[in-house]
C-alpha cells in the first residue's frame, strides 16, 4: 500500500469519525448546564477543555490499540479476509447510520443510543462540576459510540501498520486531529461567545445531511477498501493486472 493510499484511508476514516455526534451533543449539554448554573466563563471552558482532552485521549488510545493489535496479529501483511471484514463492517454500519443514527420522528438531535444510556449520560453531564469528571465523560462519549467508531478506526489502524514507526505516529496524530475537529469547532464557538441555541439549532436543521454524509462516507470507505485491498490484490496475485 503506498503512502497516499494510506493517508487517504486515514483521512477519510477520521472525517467519518468526526461526523459522529455523541461527543458534540454531550459538550453542548455540558456547557449549557455550566453556563446555566452561573459558573464563571473560565470554569465552563475548563470543563469543556477537560472533556475535549478526554475525547482526544480516548480517540488516540482506540486507534493506537487497534493498530497495535493489527501489527501483532498480521506481521506479514493484513489478510484479504480481514480487509473484507472491515469493508463489510463499514458498509453495514453505513446503512445502519442511514437507517437509525438519529431517532425517527423526534425533534432535537436524539441519537440512536438506548434511552436508559442516554438518560444516564445526560444526568452525569448535567451533574459534572469538576474537570476530572468532565475528562472521564469525554472518554465515555468515545466509548459509548464505539459501535460506529470501530469501522473507521479499524480501517485507519490497518492502513497505518503499513507505515514505518515514525509515520505511524504521524498517522495517529492526523487521525486524532481530524476526528476531533467537529468538537473543537463547537468548543471554539462556545468559547467565542456564540449562543448555544444557535449551535444546537444549526445541528438540528442539518442533522439529516450529517447523517446522510456519514452513512455515505462509510459506504465509500468500505467500497474503496474492498476494491483496493481485496479485489485488486486478488487480481494482482493472479497476474491479471
Amino acid at each position: 500500500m503506498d503512502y497516499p493510499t494510506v493517508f487517504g484511508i486515514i483521512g477519510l476514516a477520521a472525517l467519518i469519525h468526526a461526523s459522529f455526534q455523541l461527543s458534540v451533543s454531550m459538550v453542548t449539554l455540558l456547557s449549557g448546564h455550566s453556563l446555566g448554573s452561573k459558573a464563571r466563563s473560565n470554569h465552563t471552558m475548563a470543563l469543556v477543555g477537560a472533556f475535549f482532552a478526554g475525547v482526544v485521549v480516548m480517540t488516540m488510545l482506540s486507534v493506537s490499540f487497534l493498530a497495535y493489535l493489527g501489527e501483532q496479529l498480521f506481521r506479514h501483511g493484513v489478510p484479504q479476509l480481514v480487509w473484507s471484514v472491515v469493508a463489510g463492517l463499514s458498509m453495514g454500519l453505513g446503512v445502519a447510520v442511514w437507517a437509525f443514527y438519529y431517532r425517527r420522528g423526534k425533534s432535537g438531535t436524539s441519537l440512536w443510543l438506548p434511552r436508559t444510556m442516554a438518560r444516564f449520560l445526560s444526568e452525569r453531564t448535567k451533574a459534572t462540576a469538576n474537570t476530572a469528571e468532565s475528562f472521564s465523560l469525554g472518554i465515555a462519549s468515545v466509548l459509548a459510540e464505539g459501535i460506529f467508531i470501530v469501522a473507521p478506526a479499524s480501517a485507519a489502524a490497518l492502513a497505518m501498520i503499513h507505515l514505518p514507526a515514525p509515520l505511524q505516529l504521524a498517522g495517529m496524530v492526523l487521525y486524532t486531529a481530524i476526528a476531533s475537529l467537529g468538537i473543537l469547532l463547537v468548543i471554539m464557538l462556545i468559547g467565542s461567545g456564540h449562543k448555544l441555541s444557535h449551535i444546537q439549532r444549526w445541528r438540528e436543521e442539518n442533522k439529516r445531511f450529517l447523517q446522510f454524509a456519514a452513512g455515505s462516507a462509510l459506504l465509500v470507505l468500505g467500497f474503496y477498501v474492498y476494491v483496493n485491498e481485496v479485489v485488486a490484490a486478488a487480481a494482482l496475485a493472479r497476474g491479471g493486472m
Partner: protein
Amino acid sequence: MSHSVDVVKRGGKRPTEAYSRKKLEASVYAACLSVRSLDGHAKQTAAQVADAIEAWMKNKSEITSTDIRRQASKALSKLHPDAAYLYQHHRVIL
C-alpha cells in the same frame, strides 16, 4: 398562589408533587443564562414566565409536568426565543 396544585411527573412514573414557583423560575432562569442572558434579565424573564403559568393554572387542581413545560415554553418564546428553544429541547440533545 391561593390554592395548591399537584404536578403529575412524567406521566405518573415519578411521585406527584406540589407545584413550586421557585423550581419553575430556577429552570427558566438557567435556560436564560445558558444563552448568555444577563442575570437581571434572566430573573425578570423567569418571574414573567412563572406569572404566566400561574395565570394559566388558575382553577386547576392537577396538572402534568409536560403541561408546565409546554406552557412555559410558549410564554418564554414570546419573551426570549433563544432561551425557549433550549428550554424545549434540552431533553432531546442526546
